[in-house]
């Protein structure tokens, strides 16, 4: 029995379940998802309004019915990938530009490569990737992955004029089951368009049917920027690395330069709390001091909240635009919470509650997003459902049969996914609390809306009620009093009605 190292690509090839490639249905969904997410990241990094073309075609080399070979093509108009980086970007696991503290859709640096891996494992076919960074010339590769060594295998290179196209195109042929994956694919595209209302998406299905989701706004949110960690909860190894990379300066300077939202005053107060001399050289810290510093970072409660500028939120306008585009509701309320942090990672919760309209069915429908990615699987294990289950929606006048949409968007430099497939979010207390507060605000506004709606219906009814009953009251009083003629009641009606209308409008 020998000991040996295996490559990340071989590890994930052997354990495809871990990345979501469990079966041909999920594999098709996740392949498409990973490629689309790369494309949108690329456009947003360059503040380019995204224009995506997606197609799924049957490959006749495979079986005659599902699961069968499908050729996936995803093309964007993003920043593109430099020629020198193209092989590794698609041919290596743990390769990419996603390993600094920065918000992005892609997180694990392996989605696209897993797609290529799955393709060659299930169909034997190489994949084609092409990119242009200038709009003048493109570079293309027909390639596979060397699974054992986590390296690209370049079968053929291509090069030519781009005719103004800048962006990336990926084409892979996988064993998939489109028939069973269709609903999830369509939901993913529609919800992506909701979270990115500034994107236009064209999709062609295996039958050749084409669907276009036109952008509804022409303004993009600011792209995320690389950020320093927030000091709360940073661990010892990160501190060691910071110290290892520290060139010169005392502890006071170290604190202000390595963490966001730490100025000299905060640094001074914190170091006093931690019992560390501000004038020390960080490199002179021994293990006991380092341990004490890390413990203090965990327990100190007076750091400023994270800086929102490093995170790219949708904001009220774009969130509402997306919700209205997807659901066309009669009511929509958006909420954006202020930044918080967990383990040094800043995060922001955006949420919306929608009511009514032609698309929502009776009951609660949940739409989950993380850094603009729709999350469609394992809904019941997710933090959002946990929060919703703990809320009493009747206290917001929501009845069981009311058509309500709940949209939750988690934005962070690191999303606490429970799986590599990015299927659901762990219920970290800090995130859970913020989601609860966001939803509470949104539902309060829904309650006000429902109350007002009820009142206005009431006004219309009052006019009818008045004339009918006043005449009955007059008639019966005449009978009871044994009089011969009806009393004059007409004069009474309008005043009462007027007063009710006033009341309803003030209510």
């Amino acid at each position, binding site marked *: 029995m020998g000991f040996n190292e295996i490559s990340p690509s071989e590890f994930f090839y052997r354990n495809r379940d871990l990345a979501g490639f469990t079966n041909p249905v999920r594999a098709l969904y996740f392949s498409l998802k990973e490629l689309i997410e790369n494309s949108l990241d690329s456009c947003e990094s360059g503040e380019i309004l995204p224009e995506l073309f997606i197609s799924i075609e049957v490959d006749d080399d495979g079986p005659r019915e599902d699961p069968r070979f499908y050729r996936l093509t995803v093309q964007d108009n993003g920043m593109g990938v430099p020629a020198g980086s193209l092989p590794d970007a698609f041919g290596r696991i743990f390769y990419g530009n996603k390993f600094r503290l920065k918000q992005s859709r892609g997180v694990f640096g392996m989605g696209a490569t897993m797609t290529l891996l799955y393709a060659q494992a299930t169909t034997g076919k190489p994949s084609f990737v092409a990119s242009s960074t200038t709009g003048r010339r493109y570079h293309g590769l027909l390639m596979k992955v060397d699974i054992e060594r986590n390296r690209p295998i370049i079968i053929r290179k291509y090069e030519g004029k781009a005719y103004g196209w800048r962006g990336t195109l990926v084409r892979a042929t996988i064993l998939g089951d489109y028939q069973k994956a269709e609903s999830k694919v369509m939901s993913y595209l529609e919800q992506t368009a909701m979270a990115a209302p500034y994107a236009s998406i064209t999709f062609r299905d295996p039958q050749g049917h084409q669907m276009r989701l036109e952008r509804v706004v022409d303004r993009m949110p600011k792209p995320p920027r690389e950020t320093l960690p927030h000091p709360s909860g940073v661990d010892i190894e990160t501190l060691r690395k910071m110290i290892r990379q520290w060139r010169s300066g005392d502890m006071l300077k170290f604190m202000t330069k390595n963490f966001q939202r730490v100025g000299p005053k905060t640094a001074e107060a914190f170091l006093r709390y931690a019992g560390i001399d501000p004038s020390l050289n960080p490199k002179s810290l021994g293990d006991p001091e380092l341990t004490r510093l890390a413990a203090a970072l965990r327990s100190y409660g007076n750091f400023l909240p994270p800086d929102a500028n490093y995170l790219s939120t949708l904001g009220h306008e774009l969130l509402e635009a997306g919700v209205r585009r997807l659901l066309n509701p009669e009511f929509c309320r958006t909420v954006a919470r202020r930044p918080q942090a967990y383990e040094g990672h800043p995060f922001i919760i955006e949420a919306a509650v929608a009511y009514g309209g032609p698309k929502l069915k009776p009951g609660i429908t949940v739409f989950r997003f993380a850094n603009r990615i729709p999350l469609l699987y394992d809904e019941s294990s997710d933090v959002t459902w946990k929060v919703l289950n703990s809320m009493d929606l009747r206290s917001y006048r929501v009845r069981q049969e009311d058509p309500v949409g709940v949209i939750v968007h988690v934005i962070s430099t690191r999303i606490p996914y429970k799986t590599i497939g990015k299927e659901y979010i762990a219920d970290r207390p800090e995130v859970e609390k913020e989601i609860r507060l966001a939803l509470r605000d949104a539902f309060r506004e829904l309650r006000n809306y429902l109350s007002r709606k009820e009142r206005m219906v009431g006004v219309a009814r009052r006019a009818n009620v008045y004339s009918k*009953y006043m005449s009955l009251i007059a008639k019966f009083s005449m009978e009871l009093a044994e009089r011969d003629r009806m009393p004059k009641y007409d004069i009474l009606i309008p005043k009462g*009605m007027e*007063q009710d209308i006033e009341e309803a409008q003030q209510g």
Partner: protein
Amino acid sequence: MKRRSRASAGNRAAVARLRKLGELVYEQIERGEYPIVRIPDRSVGNIIYDEKLGQYILGPKRFVRTTKNVKHLRAFAQLMWLAYFSKLLSSSHKTSTLRDVFYSAQAYNVEFEDQDESDERITELEALLGMAREEFNVYPEERSSIFGRLTIEYNIPGYEGRKLDLTSHPDGVMIGPALTTADFVETDAEMVIAIEKGGLFTRFIEEKVHDRFKAVLINTAGQAPRATRYLLRRLRNELNLPVYVLTDGDPWGMHIAMVIISGSANAAHLTQLNVPDASWIGVWATDITKYKLPFDKLTDVDIKRLRELSSDPRYSGDPWSSQIDAFLKHRRKSEQEAFAKYGLTYIVDKYLPDKLGR
């Protein structure tokens, strides 16, 4: 001895009060005012325990039903129709069930959403007039019966002057509108025994309790209907007969007895449906252990009810509070039929004499 029934007087009084209500509303409309009526408030905050009367009564609060408020309009119209309809019934000596009232409204373009709304409006009319619905000829369906040493004389149309000895039918005589409004003509009874269950009522008749104890027997058939409670009150007040109440040994039985004695919270607006000095003679909680009766365990609902009773001022004296304690201590309940463990006649031969102090 012979006495005139309050029921007949009540009938003429009802017609008068209903006419007066009509005049009040008519005059307001004629003056160009939005008609209002002030109805005694029957909510919990206005229900007061009157020590002297030994029952719950309504306090001085009134609520105003005004046609100025569109939310009151429908109820106001329903109330006026009910007054009109009741006057019609009383004038023609006809009766109507609560269900008949509900459907009759449709002939007059007045609608009740359901039976409950109709019944609620009837109760409001009772409060407004200070009269029981039976006095303006609206009756629920009855199920109580009477048997014993008493001769009655009817007042209803077609039966004026006719008499009936209440031992004439040994299965018991129904308590309905005719009997409720009848005069008492002759009796040598010395007591009234009100019994919760028909089976025991029949047993008492078979064992000739009416002769042995010179008793008028009443089968309340569960909680005594209001007409029955009214009749019990008349027997006490007009014939000066002590009233004894015999129920199952459980919280519900205590409640049945207490309602006969002090009235119900639902009818706090009425003061002529109780017998303040009636006695609850059993089955007591202490009887269950004393006579070693077959028992069931008290349920959570029973225990909750007992705790409610223990904070009700009506249950503060004896035997009530000590029996509540005994129920809570032993957690047992037992039915009247449980005495059959000792033979069918034990309850009459041994238990009843014990409880009546003989």
